[in-house]
């Protein structure tokens, strides 16, 4: 029921997103027909290509045609690659997921670990160090962190490749670049959330009835402390994907984020349209997923 409502609420947003992407791409200066035809083409050729692409029809009609194509997974043909956009998007997407999940795993494990430890060791140098680590994490440009990691681990030490895709060795530096950013924010929130929960009566009761400290910490405190952390993970997904765009570009990672940037640089309109739309839809889906996880962890949400 809760999920159905959230899904219904997402529909107008999805329609608005398709409209914005469609209109934006048509606002891009330059005539796609002329781009395809090349500099030497005659006006007649350009006209023919324009008619072929359906660009001579009214814009609203073009939008309807675009939506109809979208419904059957047809996102047009890339100017640059000459292949269907959907193929290109689907071919690149798994690499992005791989990087994102590896980065997210590092963020969660490192972030929650450090956060719990600093809540327990509240007020010590470790705790203060966590706060600095967290704020440094969000302040550091990810492309710079990536280049520093390349200088140290690829150029100087020669332990890992400076870029490319294929083995786990290629994944380490990009995943760490992405993971460190999230880890700081998660650590900080886990810490404050744990401190909040550790003050609650039921935690004191659990401790008072003689349960081992470890059990109180993980069973009673951490589980409840994670509710705001999950919410924040949802809110951070956007920032996380921003960093993924930059990270993929630095490491030459063949993901969809890099595809989008090169499409903008190549003025490949159908590809810009398709990849931006795909990323936005994935993002909306991810947020829905977070909402559901949230509702599972905290039953109060479902009845709100």
């Amino acid at each position, binding site marked *: 029921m809760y999920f159905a409502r959230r899904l219904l609420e997402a529909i*107008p947003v999805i329609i608005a997103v398709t409209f914005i992407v469609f209109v934006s791409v048509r606002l891009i200066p330059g005539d796609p027909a002329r781009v395809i035809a090349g500099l030497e083409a005659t006006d007649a050729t350009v006209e023919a290509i324009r008619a072929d692409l359906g660009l001579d029809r009214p814009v609203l009609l073009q939008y309807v045609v675009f939506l109809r194509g979208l419904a059957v997974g047809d996102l047009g043909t890339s100017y640059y690659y000459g292949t269907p956009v959907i193929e290109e998007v689907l071919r690149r997407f798994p690499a992005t997921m791989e990087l994102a999940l590896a980065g997210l795993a590092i963020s969660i494990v490192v972030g929650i670990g450090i956060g719990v430890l600093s809540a327990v060791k509240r007020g010590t140098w470790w705790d203060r160090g966590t706060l600095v680590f967290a704020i440094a994490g969000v302040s550091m440009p990810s492309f710079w962190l990536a280049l520093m990691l390349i200088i140290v681990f690829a150029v100087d030490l020669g332990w890992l490749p400076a870029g490319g895709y294929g083995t786990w060795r290629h994944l380490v530096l990009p995943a760490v670049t992405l993971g460190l950013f999230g880890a700081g924010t998660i650590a900080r929130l886990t810490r404050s959330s744990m401190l909040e929960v550790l003050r609650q009566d039921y935690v004191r009761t659990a401790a008072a009835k003689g349960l081992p400290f470890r059990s109180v910490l993980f069973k009673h405190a951490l589980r409840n402390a994670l509710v705001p952390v999950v919410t924040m993970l949802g809110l951070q997904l*956007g920032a996380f994907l921003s960093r993924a765009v930059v990270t993929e570009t630095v490491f030459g990672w063949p993901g969809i984020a890099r595809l989008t940037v090169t499409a903008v640089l190549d003025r490949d309109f159908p590809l810009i349209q398709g990849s931006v739309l795909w990323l936005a839809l994935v993002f909306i889906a991810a947020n829905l997923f977070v909402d559901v996880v949230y509702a599972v962890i905290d039953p109060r949400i479902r009845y709100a």
Partner: protein
Amino acid sequence: MPDMGGEVLPGPGTPVGAPEPRSVWRSPFVRTLVGDPWTILGALIVVLFLLMALLAPWLATHEPTRGSIVARLQPPSPEHWFGTDGLGRDLFSRVLYGARLSALIGFLAIVVSGTIGTVLGALAGFYEGWTDTLVGRTVDTLLAFPGILLAILVLAVLGPGIVSVIIAVGIFGVPTYARVVRATVLSVKQFDYVEAAAALGAHTLIILTRHVMRNSWAPIIVLTSLNFGTAVLTASALSFLGVGVQPPSPEWGAIIAEGRQYIRVAPHVTTITGLFIFVTVLGFNLLGDGLRDASDPRTQRR
């Protein structure tokens, strides 16, 4: 038993009530602000950054866009404090002018997002009903584009350049302003004095500007400090990706994108320039956090 921390922070039931008279709440605010060394450090960094930006033409030792082929990729030296880049340009001077560009872009982007976001948020929070729904859907749609993607899309439409980056980064910041202002207005609106003003027959616009907005500034200032850092970070990332400010402009992200080609032989170009982005953003974030703690009654030092 670990320290549960119950004695420092007040319990969840502590009333966070209506604004108290100015003279009373001002002192814990200031005391919290100056009592935290990290906030002071943040403020210092921000001041230094602004000084760099303002005084760049006087502090620079060389012309930032003129290079000399014989002086390519030199490491830091007494002649070139930060060394030179791939075209033999003085990196110290370029970084200074880059601070100027970042400050300009950050400031104007904040003006764009602050204006649009505050108006949208204030209207949504004040009128509620369908205005709120409409603003809410607009913000949701903007937020449906993950992070920097919206800025990239805007830059695809507008083409690269400083003005485009300002608009792109500005639009990028609209949702956070709209959300925070809406939430603040919603809570301020509940206070008796707002109801009293309405009962006395004050015009809606007067109530909104004089009574509601005037008491909503604290979160907006905090957000501005945090958003300034984000704006600097986003602008440099866009330029690094090649869709933002273009070389030979000494924008920090653009300098790093150029320096990246020589990362094996001259890592100082990327290292030093990135350090400046990092420290600048850190400064704004530390200051923003400090301001937030100082304006939040729960974390104030009394």
